[in-house]
């Protein structure tokens, strides 16, 4: 048996001379890519169509640097808000900030934020999801009363636990908060991230000297971790031009606040922000070049169900 391998330039099917027992020399059989019919070729025979269906890097997105930077700003912003919270806590612990001051300023910020939130809500959404002011007031009243009622209990919670343990727990929980945060859609707050942040804030707040301090700290935590992301989401959706400005503002606030307490911390935060906001997108865009995915008909089939036809 002799097989001729035709060079790639030719486009007509291959003929091969087969000296079989029942075929006269010169008869040619075109090779087909099937295995359920006996063919005079070996099973692993391939012709020049081999790997024609290979597709490389199909469906990869082209990232643009500054767009990625803008999105990464959100991550940096969240880190900075955690830093702001920690700053406030440090001030309270050292007695430099009175709880009354914190409470009043939190109230003012809350009202401002609420007003902004209402302004930014488009009309259509207001009509389809009517959440009255009364319901909001009710929620706020529940929060405040519960926190105020429980703050004496909360204050004594970690009395018997050593300081190192408390700091370690809080650090772990805040890290979990940052990792689990739903950056894509922060408006319904992710359970794990919010719970971790609140747990850390309770742990830290119980270290403060008085129960009013605890109450103030918890209200501040609520503001920073629960309400601020909702406002930010609203901003991102409806006023996309101002969104990066807000992020930058928060970052500067975070670095500045931390700097007033400890320069080393501020430096660390600055480095982290810089790497997250500028370095990582750069890496992402640069390393896209080296991406080398190959796709072909050998991939597993993905079923894209189109359910809309079922819904009529």
């Amino acid at each position, binding site marked *: 048996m002799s097989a001729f391998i035709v060079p790639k330039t030719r486009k007509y099917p291959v003929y091969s001379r087969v000296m079989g027992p029942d075929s006269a020399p010169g008869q040619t059989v075109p090779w087909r890519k099937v295995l359920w019919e006996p063919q005079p070729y070996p099973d692993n025979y391939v012709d020049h169509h081999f790997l024609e269906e290979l597709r490389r890097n199909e469906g990869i997105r082209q990232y643009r640097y500054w767009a990625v930077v803008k999105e990464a700003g959100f991550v940096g912003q969240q880190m900075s808000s955690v830093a702001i919270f920690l700053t406030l806590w440090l001030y309270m612990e050292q007695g430099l900030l009175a709880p009354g001051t914190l409470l009043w300023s939190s109230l003012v910020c809350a009202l401002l934020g609420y007003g902004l939130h209402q302004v930014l809500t488009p009309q259509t959404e207001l009509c389809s999801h009517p959440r009255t002011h009364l319901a909001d007031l009710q929620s706020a009243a529940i929060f405040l009363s519960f926190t105020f009622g429980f703050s004496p209990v909360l204050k004594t919670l970690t009395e018997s636990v050593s300081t190192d343990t408390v700091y370690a727990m809080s650090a772990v929980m805040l890290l979990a908060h940052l990792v689990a945060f739903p950056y894509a859609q922060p408006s319904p707050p992710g359970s794990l991230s*919010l719970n971790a942040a609140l747990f850390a804030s309770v742990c830290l707040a119980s270290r403060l000297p008085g129960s009013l301090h605890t109450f103030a700290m918890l209200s501040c935590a609520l503001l920073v971790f629960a309400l601020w992301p909702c406002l930010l989401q609203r901003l991102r959706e409806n006023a996309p031009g101002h969104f990066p400005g807000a992020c930058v503002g928060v970052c500067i606030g975070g670095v500045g606040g931390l700097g007033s307490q400890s320069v080393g911390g501020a430096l660390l935060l600055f480095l982290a922000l810089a790497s997250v906001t500028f370095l990582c997108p750069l890496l992402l865009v640069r390393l896209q070049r080296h991406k080398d995915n190959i796709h072909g008909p050998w991939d597993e089939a993905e079923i894209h169900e189109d359910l809309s036809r079922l819904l009529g």
Partner: protein
Amino acid sequence: MVLKIFFPQCCNLADSGLLVGRWIPGHDSAVVLAVIHYPFIPAQVKQYIQQIQRQSGEELAVLGSWSLPKESQEGMESFLRDLSTIFPQERWLQISRKMGKMGFTCQILSRSQRAAGEEREKQSRSEEDGEEEEEKEKVVFVHYDQKKVMLSRLHPVHMEDTQTAAASELRQVFQTVARSQPLFLLDRYDDGPLRSTHWQTEGREGSILVELLKRASVPLCLLLSWPMSIWTRFCRLRIFRIFPLSVLSSKLSTCIQLSHRSEHMRSISAPGAASSHIEFTRKANTVVSVLVDVALGILLMTWLYRDEHVATLASALVPAADRVATELEQLLQWLMGAPAGLKMNRALDQVLGRFFLYHIHLWISYIHLLSPSVEQILWYGGLSAGLGLTFALSLLSDMVALLTFHIYCFYVYGARLYCMKVYGLSSLWRLFRGKKWNVLRQRVDSCSYDLDQLFIGMLLFTILLFLLPTTALYYLVFTLLRLVVVLFQGVLHLSVDFINSFPLFALGQRICQPYRLAEGVKFRVLCEEPGSALHLLMEINPLSCSAVVQTYRTPASSCYPRDSWAALVRKLFVGELVYPWRRKSSKAD
């Protein structure tokens, strides 16, 4: 084909005569019950056999002839052969024995052969004529002790309602001998027309005590049933169904023991003899256990009321209760500090500690209030030992339960608190992760919570988590105390149940007359002479003691652990209330 002939040992040296017995249906065997001697009138023999058949209900028949020729009796062979024509049977056995020789010889004549007039002797001399060995019917003689087999019961005892051939051969042999008791009433001192040999030929055996007991049992039962009926009517009064009394009577072990004993007495005093062997043994067991119980109780009473023991006990009781309370107070003070170096939440610690201390204070005041009348209570309580040791033990258990009621209360409080905490924590932990328990599907599902739910849930979770060590420690301490008390009570209950249900009568029977409770038989080769039949001795294998106890235990309320170890540990861990002993009360069948 091997023909088994069960031959009583008492007839080994009997005079020649007719063999009376029964062919076992379904098996190739026969039981010889007695030998009726010459001279006799065949009509009288037939009449006698029919009479015995009516009385016993067994199908008796004349099996064949037995000849043990003495010096003066010769030429019996033809006489014996002629006998076979008088008593028509399917098969006729001719067993003979020579004095001085151990083995028997047996000739089996079938009806067809006898009718044809010729006899084809099927002997068991195998080595005589070696060529013609067509159907050699081998015969095996199994010797048995008639008295023992008559009195014994083969275990496991089935309900004796059928005489089906499905019963095994051995069981049918035992049944036949047991039922043929009317046959053994004819002894040699009777002036009847027939003379027979069986185990009671030398005279009927009887024991005066047994006869007296049998005669006295009926009037005693009547005497007992009269107060029992009054007591039963009293117990059925409506007043005992009302809520507090019914709960009390189901919880106090004295009341439970009282109801058991009355149940037992009712079963003893029931008119009518025991229908089956098992029922008789159970009744006997109950009687013996009641007697032993009362004897032990009276012993206790004599010890208690002598030498002012009651007063000593009473004067030791109140200081003991005081001591317990002081120890508990010290324990609580230790818990309120920093027990074992653990860091407790101070506020909660103080709250719980003060609460329990107040409880103990209340309890001590109550005990001091009771202290003047403790001696009286003990004196009257000791009287209950006259009813039986079990009553005294039950009363002791109840008194212990009453005296340690505060420990029980503490345990319940601690367990409830801990259980709520664990439940709340597990639910809030699910909230922490953003999940929820789906009651419909019995699984954990994800759930999107509102902001306020998350916030409040988080606060509560933190609070519960940090307060957990304190609660857990209190729970642990009180659970251990409660378990100690429960253990002590359990020991008391177990001993009460032991006295109630242990089959002393059956065990006594097993020790003194082991042949009465048979598990099976064993065979010993008596004589194996070449040329004669095989002789085996059947000896009764008595039931093992553990099997006796198991079979004849009175199914009284047995107190056994409700949960396995794993389930108990899991309940303790979660904080569910444990009641480790469960009382299973079932009626005796």
